[in-house]
């Protein structure tokens, strides 16, 4: 045997056969996820026509509805873009208010035991309160809001987001690393510099968490409040299609909510998180615990189904 043969045969293993490659791909998590989606759509397409109902639209009908909405050819009063725009503006205003009110309360709770005791039970109750309750109560208090600045949806966002903002700010203040503030005091660093470069950066992960969970919970309440007490917005639109008895509209909007949640979670938050925490070497594990919005979004759909009387 020539030495080239020996080198070739030992240094380069034979390329994997087609079958081996397929076997490797089938074993990946990605394959299982793709397979589940394909099977779901196949079942939807082929099993639904066998059911004794005409109230479940086929995938093509739902996708057609969504495509029309995206292009602006809607039979409703507003397109999906306008509806989400209105809802996002309300979410922004409501969350902004929750942040302005919640951060000072959280900060004070962090530095004073008396303030902590004073607010503690309210915060716990707020965290446990289903946003459906806020949506109903604000609907009773503010009535049907006709403009963009509708009382019920905005105040629902404030009430649903506020406890998350407070609790995260409070935890953040308690978590400011003592050893870093001691270091700064040993070096006679000024208070303003310590506030800017030690306290605020160490609060950032907690502000981030309050943003994530506050927005997610606020959104959940907002959509419900729009169902009950508004005449515009994404929540109102889903109710519009329900009232019009168009299941493809309800399912289409549910899918819009999911796409929106995925966009916020995967694009906005992950980018923002990477920017803010670029100093953290283990960025991936940091981004993980906040499956928040997508998860709450899923709960949201269940809530509509269970409490809002919308059957999909």
């Amino acid at each position, binding site marked *: 045997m020539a030495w080239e043969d020996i080198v070739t045969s030992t240094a380069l293993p034979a390329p994997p056969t087609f079958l081996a490659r397929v076997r490797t791909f089938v074993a990946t998590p990605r394959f299982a996820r793709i397979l589940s989606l394909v099977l779901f759509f196949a079942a939807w397409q082929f099993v639904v026509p066998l059911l004794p109902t005409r109230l479940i639209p086929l995938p093509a009908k739902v996708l057609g509805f969504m495509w029309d909405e995206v292009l602006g050819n809607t039979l409703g009063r507003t397109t999906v873009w306008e509806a989400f725009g209105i809802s996002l503006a309300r979410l922004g205003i409501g969350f902004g208010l929750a942040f302005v009110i919640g951060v000072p309360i959280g900060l004070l709770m962090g530095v004073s035991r008396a303030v902590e005791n004073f607010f503690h039970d309210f915060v716990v109750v707020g965290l446990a309160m289903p946003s459906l309750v806020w949506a109903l109560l604000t609907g009773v208090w503010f009535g049907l809001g006709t403009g963009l600045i509708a009382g019920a949806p905005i105040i629902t966002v404030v009430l649903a987001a506020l406890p998350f903002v407070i609790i995260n700010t409070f935890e953040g203040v308690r978590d400011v690393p003592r050893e870093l503030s*001691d270091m700064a005091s*040993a070096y006679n660093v000024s208070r303003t510099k310590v506030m800017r470069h030690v306290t605020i950066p160490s609060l950032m992960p907690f502000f981030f968490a309050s943003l994530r969970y506050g927005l997610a919970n606020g959104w959940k309440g907002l959509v419900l409040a729009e169902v009950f007490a508004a005449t515009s917005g994404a929540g109102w639109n889903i109710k519009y299609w329900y009232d019009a008895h168009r299941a493809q509209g309800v399912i289409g909007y549910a899918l819009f909510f999911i796409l929106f949640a995925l966009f916020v979670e995967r694009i906005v938050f992950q980018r923002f998180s990477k920017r803010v925490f670029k*100093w953290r070497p283990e960025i991936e594990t940091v981004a993980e615990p906040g499956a928040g919005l997508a998860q709450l979004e899923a709960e949201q759909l269940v809530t509509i189904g269970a409490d809002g009387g919308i059957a999909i």
Partner: protein
Amino acid sequence: MAEIKIERLSKEFGTGEGMVKALQDVSFGVSGYVFTSIVGPSGCGKSTLLNILSGIETPTSGSVTITQNGGQATVGYVFQSSRLLPWRSVIDNLMFVQPEPNDEARDRCMKFLEMVHLKGKEDKYPGELSGGMQQRVGIARAFSIEPDVLFMDEPFSHLDAITARSLRLELHELWKATGKTVLFVTHDVGEAVELSNRILVFAAGGVLEDDMDVDLPFPRDAADDQVALAKAHVLKKFEELNLIAT
């Protein structure tokens, strides 16, 4: 010339089981270009003493004065862990403690980073550096404010033996080059003998038991007979004072 004067210093802590004495009636003085080590077993109040000297803690009684030619002295501190701000780059960590963060301060910071062999790492975040490198940044930070007095609290205790040895050599070179008054806390007698002109021995409960001078030429090698003898001498003192747990 820098001068540290400690008079009848005591510190007590309140715990769940009553008051614990961390320092008892400690008095000593240090002045000029001297490297003083404070050695003793865990819980003998070594770190408490440095915390009081740097103003992080207040004493129960007694007084502390740190002066430079009669005026206020500036103080640098190297901690047991590096205590760097993880969200700021290496150079920004050094700039954070500068009283006047101008170009001159930046040049000075770069000079000390170079002296601890971290040139080129100035824009890295602490999380991107090894433990030894992080501690080097901590040392460069302390020297970069050109302090009159330098406190060091077991700065090498978290590092592996080889890294600790190379950092000790670097520290000695820095001390020689800058001529600071250094107060160095350690539980490692060998480390104290290698680095110091003077060793203060503390016993449990924060009692100053002995004060000895180490008159050996630098650089000192742990393998050198004289250094080994000096170490044995200090350890014997420890035995006499019942400081070694058996």
